[in-house]
């Protein structure tokens, strides 16, 4: 009997331990990536216009690890995803990624001295968590949430919500509008032009 209780306790401990060890992992993961980006931005050896390209390259490298672009793409297209053939899906992911990076890296590079606070985690589903952060600027506090998904033990970002505006929902509305009267190939064509890969 005593043995049973001990093994039961052991079992419970074993079951709980990994969970408690993992609590905070999503936040720490996002924070790790953001810190890496901040390191690049604050790197004094990378000052000046000529170094901007290297800076951007380094940030792109972090973004590659930080984001799950496949997940992000699928969720953006939602129901429309299945209208795309596998190779079209692949191209969509690449084009979408390059448009997002092109649009946001410039913005990140212009970051100055704002403080970023990592507030808390908010579980969304079994394998998705929202990491809530705030950027403190002199003018205002800007809430930014990173939605992360766990795949093969890794947490990666599939959506960013800035002041209540979800990135993937915003693009979904735009793509849905285009797909309402165009084929997937038509959308890809629009994206190729936007990404400068026509």
């Amino acid at each position: 009997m005593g043995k049973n209780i001990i093994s039961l306790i052991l079992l419970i401990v074993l079951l709980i331990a990994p969970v408690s060890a993992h609590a905070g992992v999503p936040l720490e993961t996002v924070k790790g990536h953001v810190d890496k980006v901040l390191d690049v931005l604050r790197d004094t050896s990378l000052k000046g216009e000529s170094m901007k390209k290297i800076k951007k390259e380094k940030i792109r490298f972090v973004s590659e690890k930080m984001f799950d672009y496949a997940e992000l793409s699928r969720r953006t297209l939602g129901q429309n995803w299945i209208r795309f053939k596998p190779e079209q899906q692949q191209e969509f992911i690449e084009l979408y990624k390059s448009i997002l990076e092109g649009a946001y890296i410039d913005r990140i590079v212009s970051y100055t001295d704002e403080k970023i606070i990592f507030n808390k985690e908010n579980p969304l589903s079994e394998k998705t968590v929202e990491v809530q952060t705030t950027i403190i600027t002199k003018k205002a506090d800007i809430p930014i949430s990173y939605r992360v998904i766990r795949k093969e033990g890794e947490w990666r970002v599939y959506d960013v919500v800035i002041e209540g505006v979800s990135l993937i929902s915003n693009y979904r509305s735009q793509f849905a509008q285009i797909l309402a009267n165009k084929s997937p190939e038509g959308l890809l064509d629009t994206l190729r032009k936007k990404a400068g890969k026509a």
Partner: protein
Amino acid sequence: MLRNVTEYAKEGKPLKLISPLFLVLIFLLLSSTQVSADSSLTISDISSNKNEEIIPSQENEPLPDPSKEPEEKPDDDLGDITEEEGEEEVVQIADPLYPWNKTMYHFNDKLYFWLMKPLAQGYSAVVPEDIRLSVSNFFDNITTPIRFVSNLFQLKIKDAGNELFRFLYNSTAGVCGLADAAKMDFDIRKKDEDLGQTLGSYGIGHGIYLIWPFLGPSSLRDTVGRVGDYFLNPVHYINPTETAVGITVYDRVNETSFRIGDYEDLKKSAIDPYVSIRDAYVQHRKKKVED
């Protein structure tokens, strides 16, 4: 262009501005029954708009496409997505006044690039950031009635109290509201509330999307809210009206000076800026109503 604004300023007597507004509102309320019938207009209009590189008006590939009929393979992950998508609930807004809105979108776009941006850039080159921040604080302070009343109407008594305290403290310790002393000393922060959000908290939907010249994106509901906010804003009781409008324009220029680049980034990142802004407006307001 500058003359245009001063002319606008001179004409901008509150009542003159507001009575056509109400007429438009009544018209919209009457016509809102047609919303569903009209909304197809949006899509066809978009495809036929001359919107530069965004939507090339080449021969549209016909919809029936082999990829449209996907092989019926049950994909676990996909099932998962649609499930969660349902939870995330896509927020949408009817846009039956698309032609008007699109025109106003272009008008405001030009207003920004030709007038507001150069003004704000020149202004921020001359006026140091700290002073611009103080100006911003000052305007936040005198518009306390909007937030106070909105909180009260939502029965957010504590937030209403906070606003009252912030007003008293910032007007005194913060020297006429130039400094946000309540935030610095007590960490009591401004909570952005307005009557549009108040109506939203009562469960009233947007109705339809509406872009106003000078004011930007709005909705039927938020326009009604804005009319209320207008009367709660002490600036609008200043005589003569020219002064009131001048002050409002100055406030706008000051605010814009902090946001130069934001709009450009938004346009740059968007595939269809009009749709992107419309969606962002609805999502942003939804969050504000929930807060």
